[in-house]
């Protein structure tokens, strides 16, 4: 049986924890709103980009000498997995879910006899994947210094990936991130970016464009940008997901802390009452003995 003082201390400490989780929840909520806004703002660009790319890709893609970024290297031996996670924890299963998906994919590819290389963006994913798949790990892009996710950040990541592609380090690149569905639901997602894939349904309607300079030149100039755009979109989705996950995790933590305080308070009151009763019994039996 803990003493009254111990109980008191525990209640105070849980109360402090609740204050912190409450504050974190509110910060995450504010950040989430901003993250959603920037994801929203980036959407028109990504949509137009996709539409143009798919019409271009259907016009040029099937011809001889299509760019390698679109047509692929002709093999699929070496896979690059770009795993994008958060820089920080305290966000429920967010980082673990992405890492789990990436790990499952890596194991599947390994079982099929392919070579796997892993590049991580975000500290948490690196820590998780290094433990299990350390020998396939090749590089890490650190975003802990980045205050605000901007397009140049995505370009830097894309450049790193494209340089490796040009150097022939891999054939297929897939990015892993979390799609933001709602505050309580974030879906880990895998998306292949190299060779690029576009939905072709919209293509037929808009296939009558003239291209200036040529369609090949435009396609070659646009493909790296499409990769950067895909990564930028993924980063923003991830950011929104992270804050959403953190918000609901902290909401849970705050509620749990509240329950715990209630329980401890009841226990505290009971033991106080017990101590008083005991003292009374002692006094009364002392008086009776006289």
């Amino acid at each position, binding site marked *: 049986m803990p003493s009254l003082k111990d109980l008191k201390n525990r209640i105070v400490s849980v109360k402090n924890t609740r204050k912190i989780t409450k504050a974190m929840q509110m910060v995450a909520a504010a950040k989430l709103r901003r993250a959603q806004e920037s994801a929203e703002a980036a959407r028109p660009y990504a949509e137009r980009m996709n539409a*143009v790319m798919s019409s271009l890709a259907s016009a040029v893609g099937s011809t001889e000498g299509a760019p390698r970024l679109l047509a692929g290297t002709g093999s699929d031996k070496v896979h690059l997995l770009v795993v994008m996670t958060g820089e920080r924890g305290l966000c429920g299963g967010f980082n673990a879910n992405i890492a789990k998906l990436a790990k499952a994919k890596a194991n599947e590819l390994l079982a099929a006899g392919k070579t796997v290389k892993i590049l991580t963006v975000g500290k948490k994913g690196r820590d998780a994947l290094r433990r299990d798949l350390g020998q396939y790990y090749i590089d890490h892009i650190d975003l802990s210094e980045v205050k605000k996710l901007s397009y140049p950040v995505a370009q830097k990541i894309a450049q790193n990936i494209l340089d490796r592609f040009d150097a022939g380090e891999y054939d297929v690149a897939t990015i892993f991130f979390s799609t933001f569905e709602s505050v309580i639901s974030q879906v880990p997602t895998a998306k292949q970016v190299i060779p690029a894939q576009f939905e072709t349904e919209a293509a037929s309607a808009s296939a009558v464009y003239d*291209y200036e300079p040529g369609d090949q030149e435009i396609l070659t100039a646009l493909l790296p940008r499409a990769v950067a755009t895909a990564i930028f979109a993924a980063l923003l989705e991830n950011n929104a997901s992270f804050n959403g996950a953190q918000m609901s995790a902290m909401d849970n933590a705050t509620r749990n802390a509240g329950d715990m305080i209630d329980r401890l308070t009841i226990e505290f009151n009971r033991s106080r009452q017990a101590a008083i009763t005991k003292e009374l019994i002692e006094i009364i039996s002392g008086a009776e003995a006289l």
Partner: protein
Amino acid sequence: MADTMQFDLVSPERKLASVQAREVRLPGVEGDLTAMPGHAPVILSLRPGILTVVSAEGTADYAVTGGFAEVSGDKVTVLAERGLTKAELTAAVHAEMLAEAKKVADAAHPTVADAAAKMLADMEALGTHINL
């Protein structure tokens, strides 16, 4: 035929403009192009330069640093690598962009050195154009 068309200017981070325009002057890589309602569909690459929109509210200038434009009969969509309104393009911002272009041009692989040098020249021209 309608005498205006939908004009959208978007960069990866935000939507800069969405207006009904009478004409749009685009800085294409192979020369400037003015798109008016009913223009034949074309997709063109842009060089760093000034993009001018003429609408009912007047004329607005935007600085774009590359990207591409999609023109069809009743709408023009510009996907700019980086887009700024003219007020945002100060001497400091321009100097920074110039420095970046210079760095790229210096580090460029011989095969793309021409393109990088042209980019740099375009950036400089952009500066003189707005009297910095």
